[in-house]
């Protein structure tokens, strides 16, 4: 559990546009240990998906990627295309957000899984198909033998996502990147899919990078959490600390915005404002315009991700002590929301 298999340091991704360089990811650093589940949480546009795409080499050629991504000591960003292809799918697999579009409509599900297997193993088609059926069975698709002969459009959304999970694990990868795997699904199916993901991850001994904006999902399965805001990691902690002792006002705001079951009919408590444009970021902390604890220093100096009073807990905030001192940090935003 303690061997580091992936270490991303100071990853920066920029896209040149007509309006200037959009820096979608601004120096993200994290590590992933064997069999660990790391959740990357953030709003839309916080750079969480882009950082995962950079890892998989799926960004357009125009993207400017700097920093370092090391897979078992090997630098991914400087890998030869051939070696990169070997790693992708075999060692690092990805589950996409929308299972409706991430399967090829003209091949049967079994064929696609077999194809994924045969990309990395020199085996007969029949053997690969057998493997495909075994995987479909493992992710809980009933009558896997028959269902392997179906086309993706004959599957329901949940089944398709299960098939995607089966495809991700068919080569027994070390790392599974799940990019919002439940976003496109029915709420009742979401829990089942996550459960399946955890089960199969354990069965192939893979680590998972779970990208999501759903804090409920994080609580259920992650070990550690990285909260991202405006392209940076702003808080990194064990999962229990995030929920009980957040040190970043943004995290507290996110927690406070979760509708509580006991306050039926009450108002929702969003964080006021919107994330800043990534083209011309103002100086200072990107969260400062929305932060209830904002000080002058916040508007001039961008905080670094630094250690706090808690072990393995880092936060990028000048005023984290204030958050720590608050009895219930989620209430910091309440007062403001009422005023507005």
């Amino acid at each position, binding site marked *: 559990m303690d061997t580091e298999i992936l270490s991303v340091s100071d990853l920066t991704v920029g896209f040149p546009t007509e309006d200037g360089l959009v820096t979608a990811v601004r120096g993200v650093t994290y590590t992933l240990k064997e069999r660990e589940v790391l959740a990357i949480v953030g709003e839309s546009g916080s750079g969480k998906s882009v950082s995962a795409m950079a890892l998989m080499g799926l960004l357009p050629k125009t993207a400017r990627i700097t920093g370092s991504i090391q897979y078992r000591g090997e630098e991914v960003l400087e890998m030869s295309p051939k070696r990169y292809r070997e790693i992708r799918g075999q060692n690092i697999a990805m589950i996409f957000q929308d299972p409706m579009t991430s399967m090829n409509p003209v091949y*049967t599900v079994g064929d696609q899984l077999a194809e994924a297997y045969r990309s990395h193993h020199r085996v007969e088609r029949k053997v690969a198909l*057998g493997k495909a059926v075994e995987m479909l069975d493992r992710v809980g698709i009933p009558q896997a033998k028959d269902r*392997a002969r179906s086309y993706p459009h004959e599957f329901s959304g949940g089944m398709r996502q299960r098939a995607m999970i089966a*495809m991700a694990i068919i080569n027994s990868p070390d790392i599974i990147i799940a990019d919002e795997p439940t976003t496109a699904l029915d709420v009742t199916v979401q829990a089942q899919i996550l459960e399946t993901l955890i089960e199969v991850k354990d069965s192939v001994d893979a680590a998972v990078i779970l990208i999501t904006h759903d804090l409920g999902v994080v609580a259920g399965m992650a070990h550690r959490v990285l909260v991202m805001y405006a392209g940076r990691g702003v808080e990194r902690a064990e999962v229990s600390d995030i929920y009980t002792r957040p040190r970043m006002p943004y995290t507290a705001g996110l927690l406070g915005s979760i509708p509580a079951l006991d306050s039926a009919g009450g108002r929702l408590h969003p964080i006021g404002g919107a994330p800043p444009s990534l083209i011309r970021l103002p100086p200072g902390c990107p969260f400062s315009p929305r932060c209830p604890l904002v000080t002058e220093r916040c508007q001039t100096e961008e905080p670094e991700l630094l250690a706090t009073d808690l072990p393995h807990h880092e936060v990028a905030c000048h005023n984290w002590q204030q958050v720590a001192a608050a009895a219930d940090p989620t209430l910091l935003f309440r007062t403001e929301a009422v005023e507005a």
Partner: protein
Amino acid sequence: MSLANSAMEPGLSNDPEREFTIEARTQVQMVRSSFFRHRGAMIGLGALVFVVVIAYTSIGFWGIPGWWGLDFSSTGTLVNEGKPTLDLIPWLDGDGLSIGAHPFGQDNIGRDYFALTMRGTQVSLMVAFVIGILSTFIGTVAGAISGYYGGKSEAVIMRFTDLLLTIPLLIVAAVVGNGFGDSGPFFLAVVISLLIWTSLARLVRGEFLSLREKEFVEAARAMGASSTRIIFRHMLPNAIGTIIVSATLTIAAAILIEAALSYLGYGVRAPDTSLGLLISTYQTAFSTRPWLFWYPGIFIVVIALSVNFIGDGLRDAFDPRQTRVRA
């Protein structure tokens, strides 16, 4: 969503004794079975096979003699003013069902028009299919590469197609026809193919531009598939409908292009003949001896129509989402 569909299909029962290896229906098997259920395509295929068989066996080919005794280039005495002796409507003139000596009649120098039409069909079929296959191949590869890779290769290929589109086909064919006129219809077909692949290349490029952004292509790349594999295994099958429809239209159009060129004297030359050449040669005889026009005309229409029907069936067959069986 028809979840229960295939589970309830007969023959897919859940026999627990069955092995863990399954016999998947590959795309080929699926295409075959749904193609053979497509009625229009079957009629088209039947008609085309009939035309091909009759054209090649009747007068023979490559020196192999056919069952029709007359040669398309030898003249003979005019029988009954060269009128067709074919009689398929027994009650009209009382002769009964008969073929006669010259079923399609004779032309003005007494050549058997059935043999001529058959020879014309042979040449036209060959030209049409060579053009159809060759130009589809070139257009698909060029379009796929420029659509998938983009950037420089796209710029070069697309500017080249723009250039080809500005060159009038007839002028190039005229130059080539004058210089290499004796090289025969196969050479003509190759030259035409080299000039008309551009429209398909543009179509395929468009398809690939949209397919490239599809998530399943991204997923394939994330699974470690190489570019070649992505192009040929993942993207091309999704563009096959467009390609096949375009290929069948090209085949039908090629017959007409060949006819136009032959008419201008740059295509097939006498004594060899083609359907287009036959029509243009005898166009002035339409009011006096209409059979000289009708028979090659009928063959052109039958070939073009049946190719289109077959293409229609293929397109439906290649689309797995198409579950409806054409009645």
